[in-house]
Structure formats: structure tokens, C-alpha cells
């Protein structure tokens, strides 16, 4: 020491931290901060990315500034116009059969020729979907044709000398078409091709005034209206002889009833689909629909008014893709989409007409329907005549105005439909034009001409990426980004009236067999399916998990708890694909044969436990107390006993309540005849019992707790244990009987009034159903709910328990009055997390739920959840299509649902933890 002091030199010793330490500290800090933050961000990217993919669904379409070009047009109104898929060329066909092909960029005419010199063309029709045209002539003959742009690619090297020097993007006229050098280096040649088939004589001795045609796989159907009023539909079947190469035509002709003396010549003639309906419409809006499915006997199906507004007149009539939806435009400015629906007929009148009645139609439709006088109606419908709207129809179907695209602008001048989707363009007298999606009624874009000159003709480009329109002097074209026109918030979540459906409905049906299939992307059936799965599995899983957690934490010995809890926790890591396969391949077929037994088990199993409890009470106190730990093994034995009991009782229940066969009972539907009442399946008592037994049990239990127990308690304190236990047994048996009687009474009463449980929460049985999913998914969420609840119960401070027991409360009283209320928020968060699990579970529902997107609560039917739907459809969805993005939306909905549930659970849990520490 001393030496040290003497050697003190006045300098403090400086210990410097090594540079490397500082360096590594800095490196570590930077790495961890960046890495950690990146990881946290990455996790949140999931949500942001989903939103990013989904957002375009809700953005609106945009139209570019018009590309306007003065065209040397004939000045009169063209019959049809069109453009090529690259929006370089346009064409127009005039009434004198002149075909004009012009450049859209500068309006220069490239081709101008007359298609037919002699005989003169008197009628023509063009369908954008197949680029099919049909022409009628003054000699009564018709010709089919095809007007379309042909595209061919030429390697630069092989091209003619003049074309080789083109720069990329440069366009030149060549051989009646356009040649353009595309970025890949090739030359793209565009030219309009018109292919005409041989003329077929249609009507004799009169010019064709109106024509429409449809082309089948090996036939074509014409509807032809002659100048003299002949209305003819012809089915021409072409048969080509392979040996001679000659084509022979077989023709089937039907003359439709049409009286020209009462009508002027109609303005429009339209042929639906493959020729199963013919529509004839006049300027005043009158439309006559012929049912021509049977060419041997065509009938007038109905007659109606397309323009209900007073003073309005019909100005345009077009088909949408698929030729089933008719779009009408009128002078008032309304555009309506009409299609046929086929409601259930309610009666057939004396004259053979079927009466269609419906209440579900919107008022606009219902007002159009007639109320037949009471006398013409069958007896059983007379009373309901006031509430129903009726209309007679000769073929059982009716045309309804499903969509009204009301613009409130000037009258409609022209309509055009898209060749690939249900887009519709309409031009108006004030020089504007608008683009709509018909099903979703979404307005996509509005464009207008420079000088308010109306567009006399309009067309949507083949790729749905632009509009082409002509006024009397100029041609216009616009590039339009339509975005995702099928989806609006309303179409995803609301009822949508799809083509051919009786009324607006929630439907999910994303893929179909045909090209003109319209995807139906309503999320409601999927959200419903998710809720159904969640609710049924919670009904099974949550009570079991919570009760089991209470027993584990309050009544089980710590040693047993240490063994049982991990066993149940281990279940949480069982892959759900395993549970799903067990559910679908083992449980579902097994359950199918023992449905009544399974329903009985819902009652029998708890009953056996209760019986066990009452028997246990009868034991002498010393034994009951001394062997208290033996209760659990007994309970374990009681469960199979309960199952066995329900297996025995099941067939009897089926015999008494379900007419001996529950599946037939579930499938039975009243036929509306008096014989129904005699049917063994008529009684709905069994179905209601399912609902009322648990309800009555709750009611009786409540009554006992509230009224009987307070009365008995003073007496019971004087009884010895044995007597009290015996009285308890009596009370229990009486309660059980009361439950049964009460349930029977309610069920019989409801059944007698005529309410049937079938059609609500029970209905037709399918093998993969909500009950099976409820069982297995309930089983899957048990471990997580159990673990969290058990932890919550356990974290109730020990002194609360000791205080309660010390104050003389029994263990059960402590549990129910102290522990459970204190841990309530913890239990709540356990349930919330369980719901979160059930909502997102995929494999179990995918395998065991049947995946039918139906909207019914029936526990015996399947469903389709958001998650299973994603798993099934996303691998096949076209990248960035509406379907693809809608599936991402489904994922986002799932994400949001679980995130909200978990956040609530987490916040409640944190609050609970804080409170528990304060106690």
C-alpha cells in the first residue's frame, strides 16, 4: 500500500475500452435495430400487401382524352361500327351496304367498298360477341357473314422492301390494311376481312325488312321479317358431304303469328340465344316475345311495354354477351336490361296460361303484372290474391327489367355491348356517351363529342380497352381503363340480380362452363359459411373447454394436472389436415348411420354425469370425502357409458320422433295436399325437441335455482346428508321429467300450429355437414381455449382462494363466486382467441364441409368458408383478374376478422392481468 502511494505519479490510470469493442457494439446495435425493425415491418407487410392488391377493385375507371379524327363519312347513320383489338382501325357499315374502313388516328379512309350490288341489301345485323353478321336482301334471301380484323405477324427480314425500314411504332397503310412495327421487331399486319356464306332463300316474294341470326355448332337460326309482314324463323342445318365436299342444307321453318294490320312494321327484331326466343319491338316500346323452343308450334309468350314512361319511345335495343339479356334505350334517357326469369308457376288457367306469382319482385316489375279477377283463380289462391302479384305467361317465364341504368340525360341514341364482358356503352342525344357494367350497374366512364353532336353509332373495342364512336362528321376513339367493373362494394356484399335468376341474390360462383359465363362474386355466402362453421364449432368446443379448464384448475390434484394439461396442450400441435381427414373419412361416414344416437348423446352424456353426481352424493360422507380423488376415473368411465346409452336410446328416439328414419324425415317436404296431414313425416315435434330440450332444461334449472332451492334450503339444513342426497335425487328426477314434458309441450304446440323446424336449423342431410365440422373443429379449438382459460383461472391470486375457503365456503362456492368472476375477462379472451382460430381454420372445413356456398343455417348441410374457398380457388385464379383480387379480399376479410378478435382478446387479457395483480 505504502509503496503504491509513493509511486503515485499524479497520472490516473486510463483504461480505454478497446476500439473493437466499440466497433462491435455499434455493429450489433445497427444490425439488431435494422434487422429487428425490418422483421417487424415484414410482418406488417402482409396486411399492407393484401390491401394493395385489393384496392384496384374499388378504384374507378378512367378514360383518356379522345383521339378525334374527321372522317370522310357518308354522312348518314351507319348501321354498325367496330374497331380492331389494337385500336388502330375502325369500320362502319352503311345501309346501302357500303363498308368503310378508316384509320382511327387520322380518319383516313383505307377501304370503301360496297359489299352487295345486287340484290340490294335491305336489312343487316351484327353481333359483337362472335363478329357474326347476317344480311337480308330484297329478293327475300339471307346471308351469314363474318366481319372481323385479321392480324398476322411477319418477320422483318421476310417483309417487302418498303416495310423493312419501318421504325418501331410506325404505321403505314399497306394492301388495304395497316402495317406496324411492334417492339419485338416483327411487323404486324392488320386488315379487315369479310367472309360471306352462300345465300339462303328465307321468304318468298318480299324484301327482308328485319333480320337476326344465331349460329350454333352445326346450324344457324334466322329470324326474318318480310316487308309484307311475314315473320319467319328458320333453322338451317348445314351438312357437309365429306366425299363430294358439297354442303346440303336442311331447313326447318316456322311462321310466327304476326298481324301486320294491327301493327306497323316493328323497329327491332331480335333472336335470343340459339333461337329459343324471338323478340319483336315497336317504336312505342311494345314488345312481343315468342317462345320458339318448339319450332313446330311457336307461341306468343307475352306482350309488354319496354318504355313505361309516358311519351317515351324505344330508340335502341341490343343484346348483351350470351344473347340472353336485352338492353333497351329510350327517348327519356333510360337504359334497362331485361332478361327472362322462370318463377314457380302457381296455377294453370283454363286457357292454358300459367299464372306466375311472386312477392319478391321489385315494385317496378310487380306493377306491370296483372291481377286476374278472383273468379279465374283457383280457390286456394283467391285469398292470397291481394298480397301476390300475378301474371299470365304462355311459357311460364317472364321478361323482367332487372337493371335500370338511369342517366336522366337526353334520349338514348345508340347502344353497344362488349364482345367479352357485360359492359354496355350508350350514346345520348346531347352528344355524350357513357360506359356501364350492367350487372353491377357501375358507371365507368362518360365521354362527349366536341360540338354536342350526338354519336350516331358507338362500339366497345374488342379488348374492352376503349370506345369508338362516330358523329355525322367525325370519328372518335378513347382509351378506357375499365379496371374491375364487376365489383362494387354493393356487388360484393349486397344482393345482385344475375342473369336468369328470379330475384337479386347473394351468390358465390366464380367459375362456369361457358365463355359467356358471368362470375358471381358475392362474399356473403362465404362469410356466412365462416360464421356457421364458427358458431357450430363454438357451441360444441367452448363449453367443454371452459368446464374442463375449471375442473383442471380447481378440482384436479396438482399431480394429475401436471399430466393431463400437457396431453391436451399437445393436441394443439396436431395438424389440422389430420383432423380434417379424420372428420371427412372416418367421422362423417360413421355419424351418418347414427344421427339420432348422436343427437341423443347431447342429452345422454351430461345426464350420465349428473346421475353419477347424485349417486356419489348418496355415498356416506367419509367415503365421498376420502375417495374424492376417485371421482375423476369414474367420470372417465361415465363418458363411454353415456355414449353407449345414447346408442341404445337412439333408434327408439328415431322411431318415436322421426318416423323411423331421420333422413327421410328431414328430406320430407309437404306437397300441399291434404294427404300431407296423414303422412308419418308430417309431425315436426322431433325437430323442435332438439331446440326445446336444452331450452327447457335451462328454464327448469333456472326455476329450481330461483324458486325451489330457496324454499328447500332452510329445510335441508336440518336434514342429515343421506336424506338431503335422497331428496336431491328426487328433485333431479322431477326436474328431468319436467324438462321432457315442457319440451314436448312446446314442440307439440309449435308443430300443431304449423311451424316446422325443417327449413330452419335442420333440413336435408348431407354427409359432410356442419355437425361433423362442429364436432371436429370444436375439438380443434378445445386445446387453445382450455389452456388460456386454465392459465387465467390459475393466475387468480392464491390469497383470494384461501380467504374464501377460510371463510367457510366450499370449493364449489369458491370456484363459482370468487375464481370464475375474477378470471372472467381471462376466460372471455380465451373464447375470443378460440373464435379467431375457428374463423381461420382451413383444412378441416375444406375436407369436411362439402364446400357448397349455400346460405342456410341447417346443421345437416355443408357450407363454404372464406378460407376453404381461397384454398380451392386461388391456385386456379388468373393472376390479377377480378376473381384473383376478390380472393385476396377474402383473405383480407379473414385477416381483419381475426386481427380484431385477437386484439380485443389481448386487450381484455392485459386488463385482466393488471386487475389480478392489483387484487
Amino acid at each position, binding site marked *: 500500500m505504502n509503496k503504491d502511494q509513493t509511486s503515485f505519479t499524479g497520472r490516473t490510470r486510463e483504461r480505454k475500452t478497446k476500439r473493437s469493442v466499440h466497433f462491435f*457494439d455499434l455493429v450489433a446495435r445497427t444490425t*439488431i435495430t435494422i434487422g429487428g425493425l425490418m422483421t417487424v415491418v415484414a410482418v406488417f407487410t402482409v396486411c399492407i400487401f393484401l390491401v394493395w392488391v385489393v384496392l384496384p377493385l374499388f378504384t374507378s375507371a378512367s378514360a383518356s382524352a379522345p383521339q378525334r379524327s374527321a372522317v370522310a363519312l357518308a354522312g348518314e347513320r351507319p348501321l354498325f361500327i367496330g374497331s380492331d383489338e389494337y385500336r388502330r382501325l375502325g369500320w362502319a357499315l352503311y345501309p346501302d351496304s357500303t363498308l368503310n374502313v378508316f384509320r382511327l388516328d387520322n380518319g383516313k379512309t383505307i377501304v370503301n367498298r360496297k359489299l352487295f350490288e345486287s340484290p340490294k341489301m335491305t336489312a343487316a345485323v351484327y353481333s359483337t360477341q362472335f363478329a357474326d353478321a347476317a344480311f337480308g336482301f330484297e329478293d327475300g334471301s339471307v346471308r351469314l357473314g363474318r366481319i372481323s380484323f385479321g392480324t398476322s405477324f411477319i418477320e422483318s427480314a421476310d417483309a417487302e422492301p418498303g416495310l423493312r425500314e419501318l421504325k418501331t411504332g410506325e404505321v403505314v397503310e399497306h394492301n388495304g390494311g395497316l402495317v406496324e412495327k411492334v417492339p419485338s421487331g416483327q411487323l404486324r399486319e392488320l386488315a379487315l376481312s369479310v367472309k360471306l356464306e352462300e345465300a339462303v332463300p328465307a321468304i318468298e316474294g318480299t324484301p327482308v325488312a328485319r333480320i337476326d341470326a344465331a349460329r350454333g355448332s352445326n346450324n344457324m337460326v334466322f329470324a326474318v321479317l318480310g316487308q309484307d309482314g311475314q315473320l319467319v324463323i328458320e333453322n338451317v342445318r348445314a351438312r357437309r358431304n365429306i366425299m363430294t365436299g358439297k354442303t346440303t342444307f336442311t331447313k326447318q321453318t316456322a311462321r310466327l303469328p304476326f298481324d301486320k294490320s294491327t301493327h306497323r312494321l316493328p323497329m327491332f327484331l331480335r333472336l335470343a340465344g340459339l333461337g329459343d326466343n324471338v323478340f319483336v319491338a315497336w317504336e312505342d316500346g311494345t314488345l312481343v316475345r315468342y317462345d320458339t323452343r318448339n319450332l313446330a308450334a311457336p307461341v306468343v309468350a307475352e306482350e309488354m311495354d319496354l318504355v313505361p314512361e309516358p311519351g317515351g319511345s324505344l330508340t335502341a335495343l341490343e343484346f348483351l354477351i350470351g344473347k340472353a339479356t336485352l338492353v333497351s334505350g329510350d327517348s327519356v334517357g333510360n337504359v334497362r336490361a331485361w332478361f327472362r326469369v322462370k318463377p314457380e308457376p302457381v296455377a294453370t288457367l283454363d286457357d292454358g296460361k300459367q299464372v306466375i306469382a311472386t312477392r319478391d319482385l321489385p315494385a317496378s316489375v310487380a306493377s306491370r303484372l296483372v291481377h286476374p279477377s278472383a273468379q279465374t283463380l283457383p280457390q286456394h289462391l283467391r285469398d292470397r290474391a291481394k298480397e301476390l302479384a300475378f301474371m299470365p305467361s304462355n311459357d311460364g317465364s317472364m321478361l323482367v327489367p332487372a337493371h335500370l341504368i338511369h342517366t336522366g340525360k337526353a334520349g338514348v341514341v345508340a347502344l353497344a355491348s362488349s364482345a367479352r364482358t357485360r359492359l354496355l356503352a350508350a350514346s345520348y342525344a346531347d352528344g355524350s356517351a357513357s360506359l356501364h357494367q350492367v350487372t353491377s350497374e357501375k358507371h365507368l366512364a362518360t365521354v362527349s363529342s366536341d360540338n354536342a353532336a350526338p354519336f350516331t353509332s358507338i362500339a366497345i373495342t374488342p379488348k374492352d380497352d376503349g370506345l369508338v364512336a362516330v358523329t355525322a362528321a367525325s370519328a372518335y376513339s378513347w382509351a378506357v381503363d375499365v379496371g374491375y367493373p364487376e365489383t362494387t362494394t354493393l356487388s360484393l356484399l349486397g344482393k345482385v340480380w344475375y342473369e336468369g335468376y328470379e330475384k337479386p341474390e347473394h351468390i358465390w360462383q366464380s367459375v362456369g362452363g361457358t365463355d359467356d359465363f358471368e362470375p358471381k362474386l358475392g362474399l356473403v355466402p362465404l362469410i356466412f359459411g365462416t360464421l356457421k362453421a364458427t358458431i357450430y364449432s363454438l357451441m360444441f368446443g367452448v363449453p*367443454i373447454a371452459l368446464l374442463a379448464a375449471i375442473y383442471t384448475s380447481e378440482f384436479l390434484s396438482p399431480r394429475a394436472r401436471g399430466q393431463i394439461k400437457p396431453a391436451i396442450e399437445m393436441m394443439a400441435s396436431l395438424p389440422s389436415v389430420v383432423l380434417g381427414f379424420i372428420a371427412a373419412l372416418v367421422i362423417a361416414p360413421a355419424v351418418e348411420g347414427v344421427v339420432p344416437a348422436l343427437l341423443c348423446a347431447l342429452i345422454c*352424456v351430461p345426464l350420465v354425469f349428473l346421475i353419477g353426481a347424485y349417486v356419489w352424493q348418496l355415498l356416506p360422507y367419509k367415503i365421498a370425502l376420502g375417495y374424492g*380423488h376417485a371421482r375423476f376415473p369414474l367420470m372417465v368411465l361415465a*363418458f363411454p357409458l353415456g355414449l353407449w346409452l345414447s346408442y341404445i336410446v337412439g333408434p327408439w328416439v328415431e322411431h318415436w320422433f322421426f318416423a323411423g328414419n331421420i333422413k327421410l324425415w328431414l328430406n320430407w317436404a309437404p306437397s300441399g295436399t291434404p294427404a300431407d296431414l296423414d303422412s308419418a313425416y308430417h309431425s315436426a315435434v322431433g325437430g323442435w325437441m332438439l331446440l326445446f330440450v336444452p331450452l327447457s332444461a335451462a328454464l327448469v334449472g333456472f326455476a329450481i335455482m330461483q324458486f325451489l332451492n330457496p324454499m328447500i334450503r332452510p329445510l335441508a339444513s336440518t336434514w342429515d346428508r343421506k336424506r338431503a342426497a335422497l331428496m336431491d335425487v328426487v328433485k333431479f328426477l322431477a326436474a328431468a321429467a319436467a324438462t321432457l314434458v315442457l319440451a314436448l309441450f312446446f314442440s307439440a304446440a309449435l308443430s300443431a300450429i304449423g311451424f316446422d323446424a325443417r327449413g330452419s336449423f335442420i333440413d336435408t342431410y348431407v354427409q359432410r355437414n356442419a355437425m361433423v365440422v362442429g364436432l371436429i373443429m370444436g375439438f380443434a379449438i378445445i386445446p387453445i381455449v382450455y389452456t388460456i382459460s386454465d392459465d387465467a383461472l390459475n393466475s387468480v391470486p392464491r390469497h383470494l382462494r384461501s380467504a374464501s375457503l377460510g371463510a367457510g365456503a366450499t370449493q364449489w362456492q369458491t370456484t*363459482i363466486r370468487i375464481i370464475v368472476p375474477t378470471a372472467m375477462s381471462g376466460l372471455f379472451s380465451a373464447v375470443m382467441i378460440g373464435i379467431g382460430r375457428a374463423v381461420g381454420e382451413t383444412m378441416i372445413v375444406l375436407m369436411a364441409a362439402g364446400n357448397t356456398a349455400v346460405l342456410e343455417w341447417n346443421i345437416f348441410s355443408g357450407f363454404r368458408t372464406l378460407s376453404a374457398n381461397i384454398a380451392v380457388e386461388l391456385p386456379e385464379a388468373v393472376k390479377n383478374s377480378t376473381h384473383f383480387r376478390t380472393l385476396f379480399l377474402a383473405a383480407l376479410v379473414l385477416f381483419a376478422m*381475426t*386481427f380484431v378478435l385477437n386484439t380485443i382478446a389481448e386487450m381484455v387479457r392485459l386488463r385482466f392481468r393488471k386487475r389480478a395483480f392489483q387484487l
Partner: protein
Amino acid sequence: MTSTQTKPGAAHNDPTAGPRAGVAIKPPAPSYNRSRSRNKTSLYAHGEPMVWLTGGALAMCLLMIIGLVALIVAQGVATFWPGPVVRYQTLDGVRAGETTRLENYSPEDSVFERLPESSRAAARKMVADNGGVTGRRLVRIGNYEITGEHFAWVSDFEIAPGADAVSTPPWMLVVERLAWGRFYGEPVGVVIEGKLIPCEPAEAWKLFGEHHPAVRERWEQRRRLETGDIGVINHRAEQARLALRAVEMKYGKESPQWRAEHESFLKTEERDKAEFDRIAREIEALNNTNNGYKIVLRTADGTESTLGMADIVRAYPANQLSFAQKSVVYLSRWWEFLTDDPREANSEGGVYPAIFGTVVMTLIMSLLVVPFGVLAALYLREYAKGGILISAVRIAINNLAGVPSIVFGVFGLGFFCYIIGGGIDQLFFSAKLPSPTFGTGGLMWASFTLALLTLPVVIVATEETLAAVPGSMREGSYACGASKWQTIKRIVLPRAMPGIMTGMILAMARGAGEVAPLMLVGAVKLAPELPVNGVFPFFHPERSFMHLGFHIYDLGFQSPNAEAAKPMVFTTTLLLILIIAVLNLAAVFIRARLRRRFSSSQF
């Protein structure tokens, strides 16, 4: 976790409490009751019925778990045990095969209409006497090319009267083949080197046993040539084609560079063709030799059929096997199951590619998830300043653990496969477009997706253990002059290691069992090649892969021969559950071990 929960509880429990331990969580109550001669507490206060309901719920949970596991184990273990081949003489013919299961059913009247006229009445009576219910058995009759069915139901009343109607013919062979399912028949001759030798079953069986291994050896050799050598040639040819395409895209066709590349491409092609022809000749020779070996089998109804020995995977006379021989068949089936490729639309053969895919994917996933998870946890616990934001982040991460796995799958498909993978394809694999390389589901993207899915698990587990490291140790370290990083590296991390390991293993267990996201990002029912093989660069993370969980889904739901696939589902399930159980147990074990190691050094 559980073992520690037991310990303090057990210590609390008074050992003298003895048999009353079950009730006596509250020690004072029984002694209080015992001290009185009469019990004054009302019976109702004990709530016995409610206690039984809660206990019953727990009993139900336990029994359901035990039942489920027992079902899987029983079915999975029993599947490969060879059963007898039973010959049923029915009213309208003969059926022979292995019985797969029995059940009772109520036949409809139309069932009897199909029986021969003479025996309808007897059958009706037999069923009616039995209360309208009859037993039936599902027999795997095999011989698909003859019968057109793999399975047939044989009802009790269909079996002809007579004692010998149900028999087990001693020489009925069970033949497992490469295609067409199983074959059942008695050997009545063999073809050796192209010569037919008709002989007795025993003799035929002996001859078959002599030649079959050699034939199979040649078949194996052929398969090696086909998948190995020809695979390499094909790969080379594809590489050459892609190189040519890349040059073409860069310099244009007919450019000098292209011509040079084209020249070398043609050379490679020519050389490969010569080699290909050589291998093809080799294969042809092996095939020709093998074609000379056949076995003639007579089915139960007398039809004779000749099967090539090369197509026979395994054959055994089921009805005369001793226990030891059965065990050999049983084990050889397990061996095949674990090491071989699947065949017959996955319903036969093995699941080796699926095991491989599962393991490789899980490993890559853990390599990704652990570093990032630990980094994030270290940041949140050690570096981030506390505050509302950090606790909000923590809640959000906790919640992400509860977000459905399918949502991560959707994200993986949209982000990893289409955006990142699509970008990689544009940059590096443009020659191969439009067929995607990384731009579609694959091993790498599946691992990434699952890593993201399990990230919250690792973060939460690591954070908890970091929080559990006592602050005093950190302070001690700082007091000794250690820097923050030194403290973390030397003090905190070693102590948190058990928790991190546990988090990792739990994440692996979750990842291995997850199927829904994999359906979107790369699991397929049959992957042509493993993601790791002998062709450069040896590891192919862009390839799609097979996965045990997806295999279960595919077998159970998309198999054309669902009944035959059913046993395989159970064995695959058993395997998957075993893997997950082993991972979980490993977590428990490692945790306990590391805890012991570190608890001794605690101060």
C-alpha cells in the same frame, strides 16, 4: 413448462394429506370438517352435479384425444400387416382377396333382384330373420384388368351354402405390382428366358423366388439409367437451349454471336444424341432380358394371366406365411413406404419424396425464422425504447400468431411467387419465359411463407425468455465494464438459449404440420424430381415439392382409388404425427436439459 408447474404444486401439497390429495387443494377444509362429528355444510353448497359436469367435460376431452390418437395408431400400424387371402364362393361366382373391413347394413330390395332367381327367396328370408340387417365385407379383389374393380362388397346372404364356400387356398399369392393394383392368383407356371414351364404352385413359387430378385435388380438398373443418366442429358440439352435463347434475345437471331452459340448448341445436341442412343440401347437390352421372365397365375375363377416379373414389386403366399415371414413382409412394406417413390396415383409405394420435402422445407424455414425472430426480439426487448408504440407492436405481433395460415399463403403467392419470383425471372431467367422458374410456387417460397407464419411464435418465445433473464445479471455485466453487445452475447443470449431453442422447435412443429398455405405456394401431389439431387447446382429451391400434410389431403380427397388410398392416409398421418410429436418432445427435452445446465451456474 409443464414440469415446472407440477413441481411447486407438488411441493405445496402436504405429503401427509395422503389419499385425500384429490380434494385437498385447500388444506384447511377437510380438517375443519373432520373435527366435527356432524357436517353442517349444506349438500347443495358442494355443487356436486356441477363438479361432475366440469369433470365430465375434462374426461370427454381426454377420451376424445386418446380415441383419436389410438385410432390413428391402430390403423396406421395395422395397415401393412399381411392378411389372409380369402376365397368366397358366392351365389353368382367366386370372389377372392383380402378382407379390408366389415360392416352391417340394411339391404334394399333391389339388391336381391340381382341375385340368381333360385336363391332370392332364401337370401330374403335370411336377412328378414336377422331383422332386415345383414353383415357384409369389403373385399379387395384386385385383378383390375380382369374384374374392372379393385374392391367388391360380399354380403352374408350372397355366400353360397356349404362349408367350403369360405376358404383360404394355400397357394393364393398376393402380388403387388407397379401398375393396376394388386393381383391375386395361384401360380401355375413360370416363363424363364422366354420358355414356358408349366408346373405345380410350389415349384412355380420356388422358381419365381429364384429369378425375381435378379429381374428386379435389372429393373432397378434400368430405372437408374432412365432417371439418372438420361436426366443429366436432358438437363444439359435444356441448358444449351436456354443459353441459345438468351443469346438470341440479347443479340437477335442470325447475329454473329447467335451463329457461334448455335454452332456449339448443335454440337452438344449431336454428342448428347449419341450418348442417348447408347443408353437407350442399354435399356432396351435390359428390357429384353427381363421380358423373358414371367409368371402365370390362375385367379380364383380360373382365368389365367401372365405377369411380367419386372412389374412385380412383391409377392407372397399370404395363407401359408409364418409369423416371422409376415413380419418380414410387414417390415419390407414399411421400408418401401419410407424410402421409395409413390406409384399408382400415390396410393401405393412410398412417401420418401414427401418426407424429404417436409424435412428440407422445415429446415430452410427454421434457418430463416430463427435469426430474424431473435433479431426482432432482441430489438424489442433490449434496444427499443419502451412506449405505447412498442407495446402496440408487441400486441400486433402477438395477434399475428392468430392470423389464419391461409392468409399467409395468399400473401406468399401474391408477394413471393408473383412479385419477387416474377422479378427474379425477368432479371435472370428471361430465356425460359413465359414458363416461370421462380415465378411460381416452390420450395423456397414455401419456406419463406412458413417462416413468416412462424415468425411471431419465435419472437414471442424469445422475448419471453429474454425478459426472464434477471436484470441483476445485466447490471452486473455492465458494472464489470462490458459493453451492451458483450452483455447480450456473453450473458443474455446463453441464458435465453433454452427459450430460443424451444421457440424454434415449436415453430418447426407448427411449420411441419401446416398445409393450407402450402397448397398455394408450391406443394404438389407428385413432384417429378427432388429439390436436392446430383445435377448442378445440386440444390433447386425453385422446384415444387411434396409434403406429408398435403399428401394426406391429396390421398384422402383427390385419389381416383379412394378405398385403396385409405390405408396409406393412415400410415402417412401416423408418420406426420410422429414427426411432430418427436419435435415437440425434443422441445421439452432440450428445454429441460439446458435449463438444468444453466440453473447450476445461476447466482
